[in-house]
Structures are given as structure tokens and as C-alpha cells.
């Protein structure tokens, strides 16, 4: 696992993003218009932790859509060594599943480096000013769907209410990002 000296931490402004999704459409941060909260998720196709938590993240996206919460999923893994994480494989997955958020491809890995993302999944929840207010895992157990992404939901509820999430940071658990 690569160590990063300047991880994106709670309270800091989120680094900018400009990445294409599986259809080639660009997504940016900051984005046009404003979102009351934004969730940036480092994920991938091959990691059992990311796969185990995925349905819970989908449910969060659907449950908070009416509140205007925006979710972005990003795959930064080296697709040469991990073909399951290639753009084609990402596209196939989005086509086969019903994703309520865009799946962005960070082929250069610059976004992962800028954010100091470590594992998949690794979540950042941003307030309307795009400051990080929560960083970490969706909940405490990737094997227990009953956890229902409680930490992520709690962070979103706090931000939407204008409060500080508690906890504001948890240990991200998952597979290391596969660096080139």
C-alpha cells in the first residue's frame, strides 16, 4: 500500500475533480449548481469489500436523491494489471446493474493521489462548501447488510441538518488501491 504524506482530512477543502464516467461524460468538482452534500467513493470491480458494501451505497443514493445529495464513484486501479478494473469492465458492470450514480474512471490515478485515497471503498462526505466532513468506511461491517451504511447515513443527516457528523472519521477498510 502506498503511503501518502498529505491525506485529505476532515475539515479540509476537497481537491478538485474532473473525470469521465463510463459513457465518457465529464464530471467535475466543483460542479455546476450546488449540492447540499456530496459523497465521493473510491471503489472498484474486484474487491470483496467494495462489492460487499456496494448495495448499501446504492440504497443511500436512492434514499437521499430527493435531498439533492450527489454521489460519485471513482475507480483508480491500474487496469493493466487488474483487467477487471478496466474501463470496459466498468462499463459492462454499469450496464448490467442499475447504478444511481456515475462511475468515474481515474486512469492517470491523479485523483486518487490528490485525495490520498487508500483503499476501496474509501468514502469522503462533503458539505455544501465542498469541505470534507466525514472520511472513512460506510459502516462498521462489510459483511452485515443490517448495518445499512449507518456511518455514511449519519454523516449525511448531520450535514443536511447543518451539524458536524459524529463520528467524523473512521478507518477505511478494504483492498489497497492498485497503483501503477
Amino acid at each position, binding site marked *: *500500500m502506498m503511503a501518502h504524506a498529505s491525506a485529505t482530512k476532515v475539515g479540509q477543502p476537497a481537491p478538485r475533480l474532473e473525470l469521465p464516467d463510463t459513457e465518457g461524460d465529464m464530471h467535475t468538482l466543483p460542479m455546476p449548481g450546488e449540492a447540499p452534500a456530496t459523497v465521493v467513493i473510491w471503489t472498484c470491480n*474486484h*474487491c*470483496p*469489500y467494495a*462489492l*460487499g458494501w456496494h448495495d448499501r451505497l446504492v440504497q443511500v443514493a436512492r434514499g437521499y436523491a430527493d435531498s439533492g445529495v450527489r454521489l460519485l464513484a471513482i475507480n483508480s486501479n491500474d487496469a493493466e*494489471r*487488474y*483487467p477487471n478494473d478496466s474501463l470496459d469492465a466498468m462499463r459492462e458492470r454499469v450496464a448490467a446493474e442499475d447504478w444511481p450514480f456515475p462511475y468515474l474512471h481515474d486512469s492517470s490515478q491523479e485523483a486518487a493521489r490528490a485525495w490520498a485515497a487508500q483503499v476501496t471503498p474509501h468514502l469522503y462526505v462533503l458539505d455544501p462548501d465542498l469541505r470534507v466532513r466525514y472520511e472513512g468506511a460506510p459502516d462498521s461491517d*462489510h*459483511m452485515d*447488510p443490517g448495518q445499512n451504511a449507518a456511518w455514511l447515513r449519519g454523516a449525511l443527516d448531520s450535514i443536511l441538518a447543518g451539524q458536524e457528523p459524529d463520528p467524523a472519521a473512521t478507518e477505511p*477498510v*478494504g*483492498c*489497497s488501491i*492498485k497503483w501503477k
Partner: protein
Amino acid sequence: MVPRVELLWWEGCPGWEQALALVRDEMRALGLDADSVQVREVRTDEDAAHAEFVGSPTIRVDGRDVQPPDGEPTGLTCRVYRLRDGRISPLPDRRDVREVLEDAIKESGE
């Protein structure tokens, strides 16, 4: 003969120590020496190819994978196991581990 149990792991995936604990639990439950597990770190793609390692953790009993891979390529990656209840997991189903151990014990007694 005592079954030869191996656990191969790679540092990019957490959970191999949980896998080791799971294997040792099942070995103890069957009266096997839990300390006899051969634990081996896989560090390079070359190591992975040589060991036919398709991801971490990989558990073999007398060379038989507890959940045989389905054509996955070798490499430094994480195993995606499917539990008997359908859930995706970084660890194999405990019952799969138990069955392979039981089969090895039976075969060694034949």
C-alpha cells in the same frame, strides 16, 4: 497422514489473519494441529504465477483450494468468495473449509 494446510496471502488485502484464525478454528474442531498451517506471503507477480495464486487469501488443503477458482488469472489481488448464503466475502465460507479438511482426513485414512 496429517493434511497439509497452506494459507497464501498478499499485503494488499486485509483479512488474511482472520482467514488464518478461521482455518485454525476448523482444524482444532477436527482434532488437527492448528499450528501446522503453512503461512506464506506472496510478494510479486512472479511469486503469484509460480504459486498459482489467484488472490489473497488462498487456502489449500493437500493442494486443493477450499473454493476452487473458476479460471481467474494469477496475480496480486484479492479473492472474492461467495458464501453459501450468497453474500460476497473476502473470506471463504467456514463450511467449505471444514468440508475440504474433512475430505482430506478421510482420504488420508483410506
